């Protein structure tokens, strides 16, 4: 969209509401309303905060994020609906598909199957945290772009996070080893060969970087 970009440069910082900003705004607003309603609806008063939210600080993508979470809330839920990090996908919510994979202390985990309260004090990395601050993509992301590894790409962020986590521990895998290493992710488009091509390219790029 070169034309739009030019317009924006001429006008300075854009004040128009883009679709993405609108959605992010709704998410942030929803979180506030949600939090308030839980306060009001929570039974038992102050001492027993069943169903209520508590303000905690999470380390997400290298930044401290203060967020109100329920005791029974999963990390995937917090990331998507409280912090607006919707790159993490919820496929099955049952540790059966891998779409919600994030790194916790550099190790891949299904964020649908972790209570948010159990990752306090630990380092959470999502797909949004891979690219450098200047926008340079992570080598594995770049490899996905170049090799066009995915068809519909709903499973993509999970695959990328699983691969990045695996490569941190095993920088030079064979194709078979990598396939085993990221076998905890499903692709319903059955695009596995192309995904593996892309991820092997990503591994190579990481070694060169």
């Amino acid at each position, binding site marked *: 969209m070169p034309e739009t970009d030019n317009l924006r440069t001429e006008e300075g910082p854009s004040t128009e509401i883009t679709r993405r900003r609108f959605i992010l705004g709704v998410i942030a607003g929803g979180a506030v309303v949600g939090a308030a309603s839980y306060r009001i609806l929570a039974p038992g008063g102050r001492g*027993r905060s*069943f*169903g209520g939210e508590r303000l905690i600080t999470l380390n997400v993508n290298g930044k401290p994020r203060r967020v109100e979470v*329920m*005791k*029974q*809330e*999963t990390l995937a*839920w917090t990331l998507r609906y409280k912090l607006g990090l919707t790159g993490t996908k*919820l496929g*099955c*919510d*049952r*540790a*059966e*598909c*891998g779409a919600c*994979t994030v790194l916790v202390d550099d*190790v*891949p*985990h*299904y964020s649908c*199957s*972790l*209570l948010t*309260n*159990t990752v306090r004090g630990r380092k959470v990395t999502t797909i949004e945290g891979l690219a450098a601050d200047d926008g340079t993509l992570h080598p594995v992301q770049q490899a996905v772009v170049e090799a066009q590894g995915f068809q519909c790409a709903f499973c993509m962020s999970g695959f990328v996070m*699983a691969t990045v986590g*695996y490569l941190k521990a095993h920088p030079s895998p064979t194709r078979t080893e990598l396939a*085993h*290493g*990221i*076998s*905890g992710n499903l692709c319903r488009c059955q695009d596995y060969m192309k995904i593996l091509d892309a991820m092997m390219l990503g591994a190579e790029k990481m070694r060169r970087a």
Partner: protein
Amino acid sequence: MAVIRDVMPAFDLLQPESAGDAQKLLQQHGSDAWVMAGGMDSLDWLKDRIKKPGVLVDLSGVEELKGVRATGDGVEIGAMTTLTEIANHPGIRKNYGLLAQAVELVASPQIRNQATLGGNVSQDVRCWYYRGGWPCYRAGGNICFADTPVGRNREHAIFGANRCVAVHPSDSVPALIALDAKFVVQTSGGERVVDAEDYFVGPEDDITRINMLRPGDLLTAIRIPAAWAGARFYFEKVRDRNVWDFPLMNVASAARLNGGTIAEIRIAVNAVSPRPMRLQAVEAAVRGRAADADTGEMAGKLAVEGAVPLQYNAYKIPLMRNLVKRAVAGAGQPQGSSTLASNALAQEATCRS
């Protein structure tokens, strides 16, 4: 059961930082408390709203329950040690490769990164009627939905059924039984150390419990004695898919050979019965015999004596015969993970020969 239904119902979350505190909390809340280790089994129950504990005691912050320690006699593995850590631990790989092999075949990489040994041995059965919240015997009801003419029981028991026909789903347990592991349990009456096979409770003794833990009890560690370090090991797991799936059956054996003869052996099979099975009759029968295909053949036939198949799981009888045969014959046999299709081929070959 992949249905996303908003967030789980509310519970109180308690996060102790020591085993002592955890036990105190568990005793304080009794049957209202649910112990969560890695959460891989727990969260399914909670998300499906089948179990609704008032209090969840999360053990993930209890550092003293994590890690592998060398002891005077073998190793002690903390109940909260992850399966990935066990599979990668150099000492376990070197001396107790059977366990490393077994936990490496559990579920998927992400699950192994989070699932713990204590959780893996203490997980509940996978019978979908029970897990779906049907009021079956195990759930305290008065019927088994799996053992009816139309019940879906392909994955169910061929041994030890007693009203309940669900099987124990763990992969690590047969390896731990073969290694003669001891489970360390903290109870209100003090510490109890039990043999691996005695940790589990069959439906004939208490149909609503799968292991000896009562409300307030805590499994803290599993000890593996040095006696079986570096023995000849065999592990095989058969499942429908090579990732994620629970075993249709698995087998583990640890053997000491004297020349070509079996001097000592321990064999355990899981996913055939509500309680993990140690095959003591087979162990006794093969002791002193050559570790070869003939002895394996005999062991396989003996192992399936008395098996009672249900409507859809008769395949488990030849499957068990083959797995036990290989676990006894040992060397030169394929190990690791396989699917039913590859086993059917092996079975055909056995029938022809």
